């Protein structure tokens, strides 16, 4: 499995989840285990750029994928990803437990939107609108819960980065 650009060779049983493989076998503790049942989003990672819940994924199923965790999102030499910067700037966190999942999820969410993926709020007959409204961001980020309720800061951070992407 390729993880954050590095080929990792893992000797694990078929019942090990991708989340446990990352955390316990590879020491990547950025992805968090909030619920272990698909209900919180704290374990969100990217598989070939697609956001998934690592807790409900068997590691074996993703053996031929490129996995990206929060540890691997910044480009070489960049220090931090723009969304990480924005979360800091807008206080998009309190305890930080949900943050790695929120940021991985937001990266993929912006890519999905750019590729024309609708949400339940997007009109069916029209192409996805070019601008992400606040309601669209909330709906598209609803797979990531935050027990501290830092939602306003999270929304501000994502809107900030999405806005800049639209301009550039």
């Amino acid at each position, binding site marked *: 499995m390729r993880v954050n650009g590095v080929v990792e060779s893992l000797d694990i049983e078929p019942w090990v989840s991708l989340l446990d493989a990352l955390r316990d076998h590879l020491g990547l503790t950025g992805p968090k285990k909030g619920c272990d049942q*698909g209900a919180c989003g704290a374990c969100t990672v990217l598989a070939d750029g697609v956001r*998934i*819940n690592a807790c409900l994924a*068997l590691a074996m199923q993703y053996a031929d994928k490129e996995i990206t965790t929060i540890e691997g999102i910044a480009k070489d030499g960049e220090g931090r990803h723009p969304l990480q910067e924005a979360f800091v700037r807008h206080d998009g966190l309190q305890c930080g437990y949900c943050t790695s999942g929120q940021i991985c999820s937001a990266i993929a969410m912006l890519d999905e939107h750019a590729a024309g993926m609708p949400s*339940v709020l997007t009109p069916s*007959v029209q192409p996805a609108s070019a601008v992400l409204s606040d309601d669209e961001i909330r*709906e598209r980020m*609803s797979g990531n819960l935050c027990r501290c309720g830092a939602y306003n800061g999270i929304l501000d951070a994502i809107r900030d980065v999405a806005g800049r992407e639209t301009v550039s």
Partner: protein
Amino acid sequence: MKPFSYVKPLDLAEAVAAIGPGAKFLGGGTNLVDLMREGIELPETVVDVTGLPLDEVDELPGGGLRIGALVRNSALAADRRVRAAYPVLSQAVLAGASPQLRNMATVGGNLLQRTRCRYFYDQAYACNKREPGTGCDALDGFTRGHAVLGVSGSCIAAHPSDMCVALAALDATVEVQSVRGTRRIPMSDVHLPPGDTPHVETALAEDELVTAVELPPAPVAAGSRYRKVRDRASYAFALVSVAAALEVRDGTVTAVRLALGGVGTTPWRAREAERLLEGGPATEEAFGRAADAELAAAITRQGNAFKVPLARATIVATLKELAG
């Protein structure tokens, strides 16, 4: 999780040959992995089907669409042809679960996902579905999420899928394959009401692989809508949902499709309501009468009696919106 062996066949013949007693197909895993971790599903072999070439949406020669069983829920919802011709299906899928889960979940897995009844999930409680003949602790329990239509004295678990409600309204057909060959099952026959055997949930044999879902052409579905009522705005199962398609000419209903979620033990096609609506006036009163007729068979408990007026109101509101 109880240990199991894992195989990932890359062609169909290999996949249907690999399945046998004690084996389970694995799609996106969002339901099966959860149930295995809870100790409710205990397969000895897991046959991962995500390597099979069943992940395309194709146009059928006579019109309609053929959706491969391994098309991910997010890809199904985003498909331009689905969004244009069957908007109710795209909306239903997008109203379910979360973006992450939809990226993982497959059409076949969504179709065969198991109930979210909390007594089914918790081994401390009696559940006829989990252990036949042990009783049902939901009957006198917290029933806010439970069904009111198609229930029995053995089980009142609601069918959880949003996608299936839209498929029921669209007269979909499910194609399955096993070593014995291929057969096609109408959507209305796929899921079985609990009766005395709530552990028997579908018409599929345990070794049958879902290969595709076919949607026949349905001009009425171009104007269709999925409306879901739940305890929070997103990422929650339905209390009540409505999949509806309506065609009105000069104030008269010329075609209608109606199916309900959250209220039935199976994805609930509202045939009685459709019968009353067809050819009748497209008025709020007529919509209400049709809803009442469909819901007359409801058997409620204290915790879910609210679903009857809620379903009525949701049916009427959805049909009114479609009538314009």
